C-alpha cells in the first residue's frame, strides 16, 4: 500500500465534549500521520488537554469518531491502547519504584508483553540519558530528567502514536532543548506524535502541522508558516503605544478590519498583510516603527485579544 493510500496513524473527526454542562471541545478534527508531529495549540482553556484526553481514551467524546490506523477506537479499544503512548502534563511516575523499575512495571500494563523487556529498558535508558540513575527513585531526579523518564515510560512498550501533554512546562531552557531533541528523535523513528503546548517557539520548532484551538473550537490548521500567514499576515509592525495618534490609528485599523492589538510593555504589535505595510507607511509617514516577521506569539496574542 502506498503512503497516500495508507490510513493515517490517527484520525479524529468531530470530537465534541461537554464537562460540567459547558461545551469544552466543539467538533474538533485531528489527523496525524506516522513520522509527523501535530501540535495542538491554544491559550489556557482552549480545550487542548480535553481533546488529547479523548484521543488517548481517558475521556469518552460525547460525539465524533476516533480511528487509529483505520481501526475504530470504540470497537477495538484494548488492542489500540497497546499502540498508544501517553505522557501526561502532571508527573504520574511511581515514586515507590526506581527509574528502571518504573519502566518495567509500566510495561507490565500492556499485552501482548513487550518482547525482550530488559534489553528494551536498557536501550531506552541509554537513549534518554537515564542509565546513571537507573537505581534511583524518581524523586531524586531533576525536572528535566523526570520528564525524560515520563517520555521514556510512555514509549517503553513501543507505541506507534505518542501523546505529549505540555511536555516542557516548568523546565529550564536546557532541559526544554533536551526534550525537543528527544521528540525529534522519536519522530524520526516513525512515531506519530500529538503534543499540546502553550510555548509558541516549541510549537513552531517541533510541529509539522498545527491545530489551533480557541474556546473549544478549531480556529485554523496547517503548517506553522501556513497558520501564521493565514491568521497574521506577512509582517508585524511594532510601534510605541504613546507615539501614535490614537483616533487616526484606530480608525485606520478599523477600516481594514484589524482588531486593536493589546499593548505589550508599551508597544503595539500590529499584524499586516503584504500590501497593507505600504498603506501603513503612507498613512503614517512621520511615525517611527520597526517591522519584523510574524511568529506564533502574535497568533497567541491575537487569540487573547479576541477573548
Amino acid at each position, binding site marked *: 500500500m502506498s503512503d497516500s493510500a495508507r490510513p493515517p496513524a490517527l484520525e479524529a473527526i468531530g470530537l465534541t465534549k461537554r*464537562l*460540567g*454542562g459547558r461545551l469544552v471541545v466543539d467538533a474538533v478534527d485531528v489527523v496525524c500521520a506516522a513520522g509527523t508531529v501535530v501540535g495542538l495549540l491554544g491559550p489556557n482553556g482552549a480545550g487542548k488537554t480535553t481533546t488529547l484526553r479523548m484521543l*488517548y481514551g*481517558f*475521556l*469518552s467524546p460525547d460525539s465524533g469518531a476516533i480511528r487509529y490506523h483505520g481501526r475504530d477506537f470504540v470497537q477495538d479499544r*484494548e488492542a489500540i*491502547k*497497546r499502540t498508544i503512548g*501517553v505522557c*501526561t502534563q*502532571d*508527573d*504520574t*511516575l*511511581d*515514586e*515507590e*519504584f526506581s527509574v528502571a523499575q518504573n519502566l518495567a*512495571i*509500566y510495561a*507490565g*500494563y*500492556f*499485552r501482548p508483553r513487550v518482547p525482550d523487556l530488559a534489553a528494551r529498558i536498557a536501550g531506552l535508558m541509554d537513549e534518554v540519558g537515564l542509565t546513571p540513575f537507573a537505581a534511583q527513585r524518581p524523586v531524586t531526579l531533576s525536572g528535566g530528567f523526570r520528564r525524560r523518564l515520563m517520555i521514556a515510560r*510512555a514509549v517503553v512498550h513501543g507505541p506507534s502514536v505518542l501523546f505529549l501533554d505540555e511536555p516542557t512546562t516548568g523546565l529550564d531552557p536546557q532541559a526544554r532543548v533536551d526534550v525537543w531533541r528527544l521528540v525529534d528523535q522519536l519522530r524520526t523513528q516513525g512515531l506519530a506524535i500529538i503534543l499540546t503546548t502553550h510555548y509558541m517557539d516549541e510549537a513552531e520548532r517541533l510541529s509539522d502541522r498545527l491545530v489551533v484551538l480557541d474556546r473549544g473550537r478549531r480556529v485554523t490548521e496547517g503548517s506553522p508558516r501556513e497558520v501564521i500567514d493565514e491568521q497574521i499576515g506577512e509582517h508585524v509592525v511594532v510601534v510605541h503605544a504613546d507615539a501614535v495618534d490614537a483616533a487616526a490609528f484606530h480608525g485606520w485599523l478599523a477600516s481594514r478590519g484589524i482588531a486593536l492589538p493589546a499593548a505589550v510593555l508599551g508597544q503595539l504589535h500590529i499584524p499586516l498583510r503584504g500590501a497593507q505595510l505600504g498603506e501603513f507607511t503612507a498613512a503614517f509617514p512621520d511615525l517611527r516603527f520597526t517591522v519584523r516577521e510574524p511568529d506564533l506569539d502574535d497568533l497567541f496574542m491575537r487569540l487573547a485579544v479576541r477573548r
Partner: protein
Amino acid sequence: MRLPAALDWRSWAVVRRNARVYFRTWHIGLLPPALEPVVFLLAFGFGLGGYVAGVPWRGEQLPYIVYIAPGLVAYTTFTTPYFQGLYAAYVRMHYQKTWDGLLTTQVELEHVLWGEILWAGLLGALFATIVTVVLLVCHCFGILTLTWTAAALIPPLAFLAGCAFASLALVFTAIVPSIDHMNLPAFLVGIPVAVISDTYFPMTSEHPVIIAIVACNPVHHVAETFRSLLVLGHPGANLVGLLATTGALLGVCAPLALHLLRRRVLGER
C-alpha cells in the same frame, strides 16, 4: 468473549503492583496482624476476661478469651480491607497519582477499581490468616483451646468478605472531599460496624431494630461463622448470612464505586 473485570489480567496487574509495593517492607507491614491479636488477647482475654465468668454462646458458656479469639480474626477481616480501601486507595488516587498513570495504559478505571478491591481482599485474607496462625500458636501453648478441623476455610471466606468491605470503602473514597474527611466513614461507619457485630461482645438485645441491624451487618456473620469454625469445627448457619450479606454488599458497592469514581477521576457526569 470479554472477561468480567475482576478476572481480567489488567485488574491483577494492579494487584501485583500494590503487592510489590507492600511487600517491599513486609517485615513492617506484617507486624500489626501478628502483634495486634497478642496484645488484644492479653488485654481482653486475660485482663478483662478475668472479670468475666463466661460468655453465653449457642447454649453454652465460653471462656471470654475463646469468645473473642475468632472475633479478632473477624475484626481484622473487616478493618484491613476497609482501611486499605479508604486511606491507601485515596493516597494512590489523589496524592501519588498512581491511578492517573495506570489509566494511560491498557488498564481502565474498572480494572483499577477491581485491582484495589482484590488487593484489599487479599491483604485482609492474609492478615486474617496471620491472626489465625497466632491463635494456633496460643492454642499450642495452652493459652486457649480452639478447634482446628475447619480453620482452612477462614482465608477464602476472609477474602470474599474483604472484597466486599473494600468495595464499601471505595464508595467513600470516591466521594470524600479530602483525606481529613476520611474520619467520617472511618469512625461513623467503620468502628460501629466492627463493634456492633459480636466480635468482642455478644449482641444479646431483643429489640427488633437492634436485631435487624445485627442481622444485616456482614461483620456479624463473619464473626459468627469464624466462631463456629474455631469453636465447633464447622461454619454453621451464619455462613449463609456471610455469603448473602457480603455478596449483596459487593454487588451494590462495586458498581456504585465505579459510577462515582468515573465522576471523580474522569470528570464524567
